[in-house]
């Protein structure tokens, strides 16, 4: 197999990795906010449920979660698992897992806001929703950008875990070629791909951080 063919195959795997990455962010970023609200509510039941949810998601391996999500329809509901479900299961498991991490980042960001901001907004007559969307959230976003960047970079590397459900993303492709051709070259190239991927992610996040640099 020549180098160009290998690159083409890896690029195919890369597309899958990028798909997992983008879809996971798309679902987990907003879902995290919902979970963060659940975690902060005064309703004891909801608060405890989200607490347990977060601790399970953060306390067990993502690989195990992938497997559980994949087999749950069969074991819990006795449903037949179609092959189309494999990719859905990957996105579902990744989103549920990352939402838990994002929820905790949001929560710490929201709780780090000084009470004075809420009180000033209250005295000026802003409603609770206005206070959150106009005063609190814009400042929270600036505060949480660095930890969100960290999670996002971890996600790029975590996409390789999709192999657990035999979803052929970049790393799986690299391993398959490596085994067939008995060379570690494809794995090295995959490493370079991941690095470039993350470089772009980090660069993008830095751009956002700079955009928010206009105030302190």
């Amino acid at each position, binding site marked *: 197999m020549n180098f160009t063919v290998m690159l083409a195959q890896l690029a195919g795997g890369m597309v899958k990795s990028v798909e997992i990455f983008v879809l996971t962010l798309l679902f987990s970023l907003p879902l995290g906010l919902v979970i963060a609200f659940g975690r902060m509510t005064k309703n004891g039941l909801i608060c405890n449920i989200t607490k347990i949810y977060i601790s399970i998601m953060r306390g067990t391996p993502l690989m195990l979660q992938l497997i559980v999500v994949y087999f749950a329809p069969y074991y819990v509901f006795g449903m037949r698992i179609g092959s189309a479900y494999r990719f859905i299961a990957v996105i579902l498991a990744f989103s549920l897992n990352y939402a838990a991490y994002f929820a905790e980042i949001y929560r710490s960001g929201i709780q780090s806001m000084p009470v004075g901001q809420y009180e000033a907004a209250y005295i*000026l007559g802003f409603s609770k929703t206005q206070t959150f969307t*106009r005063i609190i959230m814009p400042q929270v976003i600036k505060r949480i950008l660095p930890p969100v960047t960290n999670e996002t970079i971890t996600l790029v590397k975590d996409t390789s875990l999709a192999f657990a459900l035999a979803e052929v993303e970049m790393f799986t492709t690299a391993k398959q070629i490596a085994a067939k051709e008995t060379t570690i070259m494809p794995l090295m190239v995959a490493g370079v791909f991941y690095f470039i991927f993350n470089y772009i992610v980090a660069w993008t996040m830095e751009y956002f951080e700079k955009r928010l640099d*206009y*105030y302190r």
Partner: protein
Amino acid sequence: MEYLKVEHLNKKFGDLEVIKDISISVEQGEVVSIIGPSGSGKSTVLRCITMLEKINGGSLYILGEKVCADDKDAGKVVYSDKEKLKKIKKNFGLVFQQFHLFPHFTVLRNVTEAMIHVAGIPKEQAEKEAKEVLSKLGLAEKYDAYPYQLSGGQQQRVSIARALALKPKILFFDEPTSALDPELTVEVLKVIKDLAKQKMTMIIVTHEMEFARQLSDRIIFMEKGVIRQQGTPEELFENPDERVKEFIGKLTM
């Protein structure tokens, strides 16, 4: 007209009784200063009046409208409904010791945000009015600056502008100059003096004795959650209660 009426105000934090049976009445155009040692409950009184804290006993009227009152049948303080409280809240502003400006907004937007989204003033008109208020307070050059680019005195003046732009009938100040260096204190005190000249009704918690003496129609001395003495500046400074005397002595030493 009686702009503010506080009767038998009682406030507890848990078991700690912080305010014990305080009554205050303020007429339109009056300037009332509240002085007293740290921890005596001055901020708590302002926070109760401005609805940042719920009270445990007594009643509260702003411009004759009932905020809350003791209800004998319920055996506790009952607040008016949300809509009414919202309406009452439009009548007053509060200036904080630590300014609490919105750091992500420019000076101008700090002032216009509530004008536009709470008072419903069209954006163009709000900006025009906000600029007028800001320039009156000596901030004409600073419309586009962010709070972090301003001195403490300028920040506090922005926060006063932010309150004034909503045209409140009563302004409360909680130690507006305590976070400022002496030379910056002067510029903020001047703004408050100008407001007094324009007959703005104000209740000011302060440690600036000379300022309180010149400006106030009445001074209230608080200690341990009660009003120990109150009266005109002459009454208080010329014939002080022994505790008041001690307190003023300490500050002016």
